C-alpha cells in the first residue's frame, strides 16, 4: 500500500480490517510482521517561510530533502534528529513523518527541546479513516487540546501522519567543543551539570571514552566572538580542558554522539535510557554494559550489552524509561521495546488507542505494556 494522497490514505484505512505496518523510511525499526503501508508518496515541501521560521511538508518527505532546503536558507531542524541507520544497520531514507512519529531528537534536545517541541501542527488519518488536523503553522497555538504532542512519539499507533509543520531555527555561524577528561562517570556528570547550569548556553553535553579516556564534551554555538568568549569563560570555570575550535571537526564530534557511532558495527543489544542526570552514574553502574555513551548532560544513557540481557531487571525501579533499540526479534518480543508503564497510564494509553484505532490495525503490538509486566 502506497497511498498518493491523504484522501487515498483515508480510503485505504477506512476499508482495512487487517493490521498494517506503517513505514516511512524503514530506518528505525519496529520489527513486526504485517502488510506494509508506505508513506513515501505523501511527499514534498509544501511551504517554507524562512522569515517566519516555519516549514510544512508531506509526512513521507525524505529528511535529506528538508535538510537541503533548510541549509539553502541557512536554517536547520534545531532538535537535531539522529540517523539510526548506522546503529541498526538498516537501509532506506529517513522521512520527516518517521522522525515525528518516533519523536527523534539529538544532543541539542537539552537546550532547544525535542522534536515534539518543534512540531507546530499535524494532519493525520486515524485507524477508521477519519482525516484529522491539529495545531497549525504558527509558533503559538493553544486552540483546543494539543494532539500535536500526542501524535509526536506515538509511533504510528494513533494514526498515520500525512502532513507535519515544523518550527525551524537559524543555523549557527560557528561552533566549538570543549573536551574535558574525567576519572569516572560521577565526576563527568557533575562537570556537565556545572556547565549546563552556567549562563554560557551549552548546546551539547555528552560523555564517552575518547582515545581510551572518559571525556566530557561540551558544545557552544553562535556568533564567532560569542563562542570564543563563552569557551574561554567555561574553560576558566572547569579547568584542564582542550578546545576544538574548528567548526567541521566539532560538527563531526556531535554527529558521532548523535548517531552513537561508537556502537556501529558491534554485536549485542543496544538500550537507550532516559533518567534524571543525577541518577545516571548510579543507574549506569548497574547495567553490566560492554560500552556506555552519555548524552543530555547524563540524562540519556546509551548502553551496549550482551545479547538477551534484561536491562530493566538490572536497573530495577526507575524514574525514567529504558527502550530496547537494537536486538533480535525474539529478545524484543520477550522484553518489549518500550518501558512498561504503571497501570493507570496503561489504561489511559489503551483507551486512547482504542478510540483512535478501534479495529486495532495500526502497528498493533507496538508500544504495548506486556500483560505480565
Amino acid at each position, binding site marked *: 500500500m502506497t497511498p498518493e494522497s491523504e484522501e487515498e490514505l483515508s480510503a485505504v484505512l477506512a476499508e482495512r480490517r487487517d493490521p498494517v505496518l506503517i513505514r516511512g523510511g524503514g530506518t528505525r525499526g519496529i520489527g513486526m510482521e504485517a502488510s506494509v503501508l508506505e508513506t513515501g508518496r505523501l511527499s514534498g515541501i509544501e511551504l517554507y517561510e524562512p522569515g517566519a521560521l516555519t516549514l510544512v511538508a508531506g509526512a513521507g518527505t525524505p529528511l535529506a530533502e528538508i535538510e537541503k532546503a533548510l541549509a539553502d536558507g541557512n536554517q536547520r531542524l534545531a532538535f537535531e534528529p539522529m540517523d539510526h541507520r548506522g546503529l541498526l544497520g538498516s537501509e532506506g531514507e529517513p522521512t520527516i513523518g518517521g522522525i515525528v512519529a518516533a519523536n527523534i531528537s539529538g544532543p541539542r534536545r537539552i537546550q532547544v527541546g525535542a522534536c515534539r517541541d518543534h512540531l507546530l501542527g499535524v494532519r493525520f488519518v486515524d485507524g477508521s479513516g477519519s482525516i484529522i488536523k491539529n495545531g497549525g503553522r504558527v509558533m*503559538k*497555538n493553544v486552540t483546543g487540546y494539543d494532539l500535536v504532542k500526542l501524535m509526536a512519539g506515538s509511533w504510528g499507533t494513533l494514526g498515520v501522519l500525512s502532513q507535519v509543520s515544523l518550527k525551524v531555527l*537559524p*543555523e549557527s555561524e560557528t561552533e566549538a567543543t570543549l573536551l574535558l577528561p574525567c576519572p569516572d562517570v560521577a565526576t563527568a556528570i557533575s562537570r556537565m551539570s556545572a556547565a549546563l*547550569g552556567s549562563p554560557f548556553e551549552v548546546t551539547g553535553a555528552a560523555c564517552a571514552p575518547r582515545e581510551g579516556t572518559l571525556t566530557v564534551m561540551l558544545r557552544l554555538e553562535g556568533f564567532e566572538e560569542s563562542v570564543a568568549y563563552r569557551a574561554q569563560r567555561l574553560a576558566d570555570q572547569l579547568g584542564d580542558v582542550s578546545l576544538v575550535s574548528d567548526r567541521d571537526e566539532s560538527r563531526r564530534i556531535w554527529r558521532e554522539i548523535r548517531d552513537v557511532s561508537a556502537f556501529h558495527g558491534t554485536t549485542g543489544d543496544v538500550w537507550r535510557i*532516559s533518567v*534524571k542526570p543525577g541518577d545516571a552514574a548510579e543507574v549506569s553502574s548497574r547495567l553490566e554494559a560492554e560500552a556506555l555513551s552519555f548524552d543530555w548532560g547524563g540524562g540519556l544513557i546509551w548502553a551496549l550489552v550482551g545479547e538477551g540481557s534484561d536491562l530493566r531487571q538490572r536497573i530495577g525501579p526507575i524514574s525514567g524509561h529504558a527502550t530496547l533499540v537494537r536486538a533480535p526479534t525474539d529478545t524484543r518480543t520477550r522484553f518489549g521495546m518500550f518501558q512498561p508503564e504503571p497501570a493507570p497510564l496503561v489504561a489511559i494509553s489503551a*483507551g486512547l488507542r482504542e478510540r483512535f484505532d478501534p479495529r486495532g490495525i495500526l502497528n498493533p503490538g507496538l508500544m504495548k505494556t506486556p500483560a505480565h509486566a
Partner: protein
Amino acid sequence: MDMPVANPAILARKAALVERLRAVLPEEALISDPAETRAYECDALTAYACPPMLAVLPGSTQEVSDILAICHEMGVPVVPRGSGTSLAGGALPTADCVILGVARMNDVLETDYDNRLIRVQTGRTNLSVTGAVEEKEFFYAPDPSSQLACAIAGNIAMNSGGAHCLKYGVTTNNLLGVTLVMMDGTVVEIGGGYLDSGGLDLLGVICGSEGQLGVVTEATLRILRKPEGARPVLMGFDSNEVAGACVSDIIQAGVLPVAIEFMDRPCIQACEAFAKAGYPMCEALLIVEVEGSEAEIDHQLGLITEIAQPHDPVELREAKDADEAGRIWLGRKSAFGAMGQINDYMCLDGTIPVSALPQVLRRIGEMSKEYGLDVANVFHAGDGNMHPLILFDANKPGDLDLCENFGADILKLCVDVGGCLTGEHGVGIEKRDLMLYQYAEADLEAQMRVKDVFDPSWLLNPAKVFPLSVSEARRGDLADVA
C-alpha cells in the same frame, strides 16, 4: 454567551455533598455560604459571572483526590481554579458546580540545581517560582504578564506564554512532569526529572487541556541559569508594514532575540500618556531584547540596528544601561494598565504567520472604522501572537455585543490568513463558539475522544472549549449520573 442551565437534580444534592466533603476536609477549606462563594463567580473575563454551588480549597493531593472521588460518585461537575486570571472564562463556574481552588497548595517541594528543576505545588504563583531559585541566579522562563498573580496550575492548564517565549518556549516546553488527579480520584504521576515520555506523550496533551482532563496538583518545572545580562533596543517606524518587514529580517538573519514586542500608534499614545516613557510618536514601535555578556549584547544589538537601517527607522534607541532599559520597557509593561485607564477593553490573542502582519493590521484598522470601536495593538511580534485591545464602554447598552462581534471578526481573520484563534490565553468560553471556524467536526471529535478517556462522565469543566452543540451528546450524560 450561553452556559448550560443548572441541573436541579444536582443542586438538590448540595446538603448531602456538603456533609460528605466535611468528612474529608478541614472546616475552613469548604465554602458553601452564598455570600462567600460569590468570590469565585468569575475570572478575569469579568463580563461573565455565576457563583458556584460550593467552593473547596484543598491543602493536599490526597484531599483533592477525596473531593473528586466524592463529586464523581455524586455526579457533580467540578471546575478547577488557580488564581482566576484567565482572560477566556476558563475558570467560570456553573451554578451547579464545585469550584476546586488550589491556591492553598503553594509549597516548593524540591529545588534541584544540579538537575535544573524545581518541583512545586501548583497553587504557587508563576513569579514566586522564579523567586524560589533566584538566590542561585536561576529562573523559570515562561513569564505571562500576569505572573505576579497567576498560578502554575492555570499556566499548565492554558499552556501560557509570555514576552520571552520566542527564545525559551511556552509552558509545555518547560514542563517536565505533573501529579494529576483524575475525576474518579485516581492519582497519576506523569513525567518527572527525566526527558521525554517512554510511552505516549500524555504530559503534552494534559498541558493546555484547560482543566478538562484532571486536576494538576504538583509540577516538575525546568529552571534555567540567568543570562549574564539583557538589554533592549527601541525602534520607531513610519508604518506597520515596514516594522513587520524588519521583524522578519531580524529573525532571518540568525539573531535570536529573547523578545520582539510590537506597539502601534494608538497603543504608543496611550502608553505615553499613562507612563511617560518618552516614546517617539510614530506608526509602529519595536522593542527588541537580546541577552548575553556586555560584548555579546553590543554585538547583537549592532547587528539588529544594521538590519533595521534600510527600513529607515524614525527612532533608534539602544539601551546603554539598566536604567535606560527600564525606561524602554516601562511603556510596554504598562500597556494594559494604560488601556484600562482610558476605557473598558477586550484583549484578544489570535496568532498569525509573521508574514501576514501588515495585511492583518491594515484590515483590523478598516474594521475598527466599520465597527466604530477603537483598537490598540500590542503584541509578541516574533511569534505572531497578536494582542488587539478593543476599547468599548461597558455601561453603554449594546457596546459589549458590538465589541464581541468585532473580536470574533478579528479572530476569524487570523484563521483566514493561516493562524489560530488563541496563542496563549486559551479557548474557555470566550472562543468556544468559534472553534468550528478553525476546526472541522472531525478535528473536535478527535479532541473530545481524549476527554472521553480521562473523564468519561464529562464532569470536569464541562461547558468549555467545545461548542455546546458539539459536546451536547456527551455532556447530556451529566444529568443521568448518580
